[in-house]
């Protein structure tokens, strides 16, 4: 059954039809949210809210748009809100910018992604991380990314380039450190 058919059945009152969309996309969205937010608890919070927003907003979904892209837009937005809220609260606990930059990742709160990609990603500003993940992780083209993020194609290209330039030496150092262990 196509996404559009499942949307129509959900709107007709069949909530289990939405369950099939959840089964279809929740894991992919989890991958993005956990890479973006760096820990399982925040990612789950963001996804629960995103899917509820999607469910409530289904009547406004236009069939001409790919459901996955429409859903991702909501997920991206929810991750932004959660990260911004977390960033704000942390900013007011730790005012020293140097300390903030050194504390690139949080060890508490269910963080369990310890690979070198994640430790490098968490040293990127969230805006750059988001663009990089959509481009290199989700392998989207810039037009799709622009629809999802609300940013222009040129701005996104610039963010991806900046992320790439920052990540390349970080990943090289991480690789060398792993090799030396």
């Amino acid at each position, binding site marked *: 059954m196509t996404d559009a058919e499942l949307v129509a059945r959900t709107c007709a009152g069949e909530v289990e039809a*939405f369950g099939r969309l959840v089964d279809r996309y929740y894991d992919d969205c*989890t991958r993005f949210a956990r890479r973006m937010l760096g820990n399982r608890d925040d990612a789950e919070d963001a996804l629960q809210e995103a899917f509820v927003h999607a469910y*409530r907003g289904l009547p406004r979904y236009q069939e001409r748009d790919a459901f996955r892209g429409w859903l991702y837009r909501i997920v991206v937005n929810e991750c932004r809100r959660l990260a911004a809220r977390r960033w704000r609260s942390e900013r007011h606990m730790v005012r020293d910018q140097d300390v903030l930059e050194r504390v690139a990742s949080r060890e508490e709160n269910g963080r369990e992604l310890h690979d070198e*990609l994640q430790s490098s990603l968490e040293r990127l500003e969230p805006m750059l991380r988001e663009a990089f993940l959509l481009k290199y992780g989700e392998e989207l083209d810039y037009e799709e990314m622009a629809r999802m993020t609300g*940013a222009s194609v040129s701005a996104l290209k610039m963010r991806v380039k900046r992320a790439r330039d920052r990540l390349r030496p970080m990943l090289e150092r991480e690789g060398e450190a792993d090799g030396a262990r």
Partner: protein
Amino acid sequence: MEHDDDRELSRRVADAYPRVGPADASAKLRLMERLRRESQPRAESPQPIPFLVWRPATAALATAASLLVGTVLGWYLHDRMGRQAPASELSPSIAEVPTTREVRLVQFVLSAPKASQVTVVGDFNQWDPAATPMVRREGGAWTAAIPVAPGRHVYAFIVDGDRWVADPAAPMAPEDGFGIRNSVIVVGGTEST
């Protein structure tokens, strides 16, 4: 043309990215339990949260509306308080009225006729969305007057509980690293960035 280093980066990311395991099955169950308690989605359901993107036309209209509201309120406060803040101290949507030497009363204004709830958050209230609810005025302007200590403060509005909106008529703080721009007010002085 893709640089060799970029190809290597792509390969490493493609290799590492999917290592995140699938979602916890209980998370999906919790979600579905929650949705079963929801009413059926209807045409008038709330729209998914829009991105906070100011398109030029929207921004211009919002700025014009905010300027108008700010000016009207500025003169209103001038009449009520017997003093209009100097232009250098007055952001178009903020009216600042002296109270004591230490703290000044600042009137925040946002024109948002379609909003059902607006609050102002900033470093002066620890970014607490519940601290300063704004009051809807005739015509769709939302206002809140709060005491603010002299100095530079960063702030934003939250519309309908989840949309962060910078003041379209105030100076902007540097981007916060996440595509979100806050506004700046300098109480008792001028902003120079």
